[in-house]
């Protein structure tokens, strides 16, 4: 009986750790996934960065996607804005045309 109690003492910390890490599949961690803070790379000392260093290469790989997404996002936003402006311009043109037309009348 005492032996059994002793084994509980030994097993408990291991069990707690095991339970806290049940999600072995990386997909299980996706729910609470944090995005990489790639903006922090701008503040790093670039003179000390060695592009051959695997740590640096890994960071670049990690941030590449994020940066591309940002760029795409900004392009899309710019494109939308341009399109909207263009539309506005057309509207203005359209507004002017009737005016001219009215003037002619």
């Amino acid at each position: 009986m005492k032996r059994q109690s002793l084994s509980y003492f030994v097993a408990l910390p291991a069990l707690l750790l095991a339970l806290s890490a049940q999600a072995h599949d990386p997909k299980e961690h996706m729910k609470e996934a944090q995005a990489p803070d790639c903006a922090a790379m701008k503040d790093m000392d670039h003179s000390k960065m060695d592009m051959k260093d695997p740590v640096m290469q890994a960071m670049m790989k990690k941030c590449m996607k994020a940066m591309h997404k940002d760029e795409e996002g900004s392009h899309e936003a710019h494109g939308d804005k341009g399109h909207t402006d263009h539309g506005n311009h057309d509207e203005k043109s359209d507004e002017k045309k009737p005016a001219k037309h009215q003037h002619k009348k």
Partner: protein
Amino acid sequence: MTSFKFLSCFKCLAVAAGVAAVTGVGFLYSGLYPMGADDHHNDLTYWALETLRERSIARASNDIEVPTDLNSSERLLAGGADYNDMCTGCHLKPGKTESDFTLGLYPAPPNLTLTGDRHGHKHAGDTDNDDEAIKRQFWIIKHGIKASGMPAWGPGHDDQRIWNMVAFLQRLPELSPQQYQILTARGADDAGHH
């Protein structure tokens, strides 16, 4: 005459061994030994257990073959994310110096953000043979350590995934908190590099 002396000596040894065994078993059942993690072992017990652990791991990990591409960025990314998910509670991350586990577990888990000679454990990072330390880390992650709180990750993780974590551990002590965050973050579309 000589054989009589030998027999007498043998009897003495047998009696001494019997007394020692009975005393030992009596001590085990007495419940006198403090089992609380906050009541540390005496130096002799600690030395005996540590020696037992280190010799056992050194022997068991001796034949492990270390992959040649351990210092690759892909391994760092995959291992970093897993380390962040599974190990930081006990082994910490850059910018963090303690947790409930580091305060409460005994023996205290090593702070792996420090090199071996700085985190107070006589092993990985302070050995002349880096391969030995790397093999040791792989073996410990895969098999765990009895009665220490270190689980065996082998049953749920294949060898490549464990090697990725070992790869990340080699660079962890030199990472800043910002570098660590970038390397270990699982982005929304990051499938874990497996």
